[in-house]
């Protein structure tokens, strides 16, 4: 057995790390954050040039034709470096949805555009606060025109197109809509982390094309969310790893009472617990990556487990990151809050942790029957 990533995959990870160390420094993240600039165009261009945006897009559409394991490696580093780019919206969601349900024309247009870095995509499901359910969808699609309001839509203010969940007749469908088209109104929403900016999208008879069959939108969307959750969990884990490392380095170099604060037992034990949290999450992530790559029947369970444990580990780590830093930890100047904000936003992206718990237990009950 080899329940691990291959040497080639680890090399890809190392390359990603080096690139982001250079091009997504916390200074750069902060620039985007403070300018409320949405995302870093320069970094996006670099990511496209490295082939990340088409990492799992087939070569015929200009992609690298890799599998999900390679995507997971990149996702981890995206998370570690708080990369201020619409990577998850475009790669985990939009590209995945098109790949799984798009027709040839849609694939040619959108996958090629994504792989080249020309198109930013996103997916728009929720319409209000609270949990996402079939009944909560009020947007409508009549076969060619889309109407309704979606919020919050991650990267919605910057994206070129969106995959939208809408009612079509008595069922739900997924549709693709170009966001610069007539009948589309965008409004930026203030949120916790401006480098993962949120928007409200309003559609008034905007032209749209269906993705996949009519009435299959809910299942398709869930399928896409499940797959995206695996990659997002890697992103969260990478973020937690780096937050932990920064905290650890601080504690080793910060002295109080004549000792490094890393030598205080109550802090050491809490660091050990954070370590355990991340290892539990990492193992679930590995399981989910394996299930995703192999399209295994355990995917639903594994993806939910990975997302839940990565969200919890990241939340726990960023809260402790601030606390372990002492007073400076809650200043604007220190970077702790960038991780705290990003961590919370990722936990609420693709469904909250409680929503994933509900999905997981539903699956467990099915299995127990």
């Amino acid at each position, binding site marked *: 057995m080899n329940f691990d990533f291959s040497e080639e995959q680890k090399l890809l990870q190392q390359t990603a790390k080096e690139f982001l160390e250079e091009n997504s420094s916390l200074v750069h993240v902060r620039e985007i954050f403070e300018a409320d600039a949405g995302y870093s165009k320069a970094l996006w261009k670099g990511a496209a040039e490295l082939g990340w945006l088409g990492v799992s897009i087939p070569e015929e559409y200009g992609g690298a034709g890799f599998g999900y394991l390679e995507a997971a490696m990149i996702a981890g580093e995206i998370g570690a470096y708080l990369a201020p780019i619409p990577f998850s919206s475009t790669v985990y969601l939009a590209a995945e949805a098109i790949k799984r349900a798009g027709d040839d024309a849609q694939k040619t247009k959108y996958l090629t555009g994504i792989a080249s870095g020309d198109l930013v995509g996103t997916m728009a499901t*929720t319409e*209000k*606060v*609270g*949990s*996402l*359910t079939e*009944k*909560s969808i009020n947007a409508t699609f009549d076969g060619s025109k889309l109407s309704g309001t979606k*919020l*919050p839509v991650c990267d919605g203010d910057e994206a070129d197109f969106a995959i939208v969940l809408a009612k079509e007749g008595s069922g739900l469908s997924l549709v693709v809509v170009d966001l610069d088209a007539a009948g589309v109104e965008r409004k930026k*929403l*203030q*949120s*916790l*982390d401006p480098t993962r900016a*949120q928007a*409200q999208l309003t559609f008034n008879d905007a032209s749209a094309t269906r993705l996949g069959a009519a009435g299959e939108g809910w299942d398709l969307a869930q399928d896409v969310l499940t797959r995206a959750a695996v990659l997002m969990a890697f992103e969260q884990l990478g973020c937690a790893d780096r937050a932990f490392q920064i905290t650890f380095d*601080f504690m080793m*170099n*910060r*002295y*109080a*009472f*004549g*000792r*490094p604060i890393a030598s*205080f037992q*109550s*802090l050491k034990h809490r660091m050990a617990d954070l370590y355990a949290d991340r290892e539990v999450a990492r193992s679930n992530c590995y399981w989910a990556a394996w299930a995703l790559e192999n399209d295994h029947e355990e995917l639903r369970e594994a993806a939910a487990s990975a997302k839940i444990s990565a969200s919890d580990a990241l*939340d726990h780590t960023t*809260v402790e990151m*601030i*606390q372990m830093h*002492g*007073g*400076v*930890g*809650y*200043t*604007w*100047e*220190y970077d*702790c*809050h960038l991780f*705290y904000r990003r961590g*919370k*936003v990722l936990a*609420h*992206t693709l*469904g*909250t*942790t*409680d*929503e994933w718990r*509900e999905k997981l237990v539903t699956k467990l009950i099915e299995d127990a029957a």
Partner: protein
Amino acid sequence: MDFNDSPEEAAYRAKVREWLDANATLRDPDAPRANMLDEAEGDYVQKAKDWQLTKHEAGWACLRWPKEFGGQEATAMESVIFNQEEGRYEVPPSIYGIGHGMLGPTIMAHGTDDQKKRFLPNMVKGDEVWCQLFSEPDAGSDLAGLKTSAVKDGDDWIINGQKIWTTGAQFCKWGMLVARTDPNAVKHAGLTYFIVDMEAEGVDIRPIKQMSGASGFNEVFFSDVRVPDANRLDAVGNGWRVAITTLMNERSSIGGSLGGGVGIKDLVKLAQGVEINDKPAIEDGGVRRKIADFAVRRSGLKYTGQRSLSALSQGATPGPEASIGKLVAAIMGLEMGEFGMELQGAGGILTSDEAGADPAWQHTYMAMPGLRHAGGTDEILRNIIAERVLGMPGEPRMDKEKPFKDIPSGTAR
């Protein structure tokens, strides 16, 4: 066992109310109160000074202080009653808490007659506001590790260094500062306590922006600031002992409100307004039980305050139960903020209410990490409970025997 005022207390309360009715306006109790961590805005400093003068002239200022310094020699309970009642009215936020509660008593205990006469009556009157200059970037929980230096030069001391977390520095006339006068002495012995003119040359005050975006504190930089030896408090090398007096007077949480602006009722209302799986969240068993747990802690803290108050009322010193207040409140506040965000699903990360989201929960989530540090970190509070309240042994000390200059401290660069 009752919550009622004693006859004396009731009479005092009536007197207080009578005066407040005549001099201030009752507050709408349902109106939201400013978050304790938000910076007060605008011309509140002048308003606060005016109100302090009004109180002073009517004999309601520094109630606990001796009459010779402008106080009223009231009982602790009378002081609490005044604060309780004052809190019901529209009055400016106080900018005197540190001066009246901590610094004044320090001068009383350690000052010369001249110092008492010069500083205390003005402090009561309120035209001079005071701040405390203890913490440094490399000396937070380990306060005695401070490095700001004071070097004797003729009749003056020359101060160099940086202080941090200074509340109100921007409008203060005086600051009380602990500086290191002998780096060759052991850690706690080389410190001296000074009264510093905040308007002196070489004092540079810069606001600290917190992670929430608010700015309630300052950094204060000292570059060759001259302090006359007459403004030294107590003997050279006695600074730690004086600082302890200041810290012992750090106002306890009695009567103070803890936690952010969100309450149990807000949580119930939120859970009634959002849906989980197409049903109101308030019908979800897990949501219900979690609300109950918050309510239990909230009431536990509320009645812990009542127990402290009761001890005061009985003429006793409040027991150690008071020390748990901020520890429990800040952690609970963090959890409540997180829970309120979770209930709102994808919308929980929105910062404004334009999309139907309630950002109060997120604000709490952003503010609570600050409360977990301000006035003693969770860790320091747990140390205090374990060591001072329960009497467990202190940590092994690595910094007691060597000259201060040989002890590693702060952040290694």
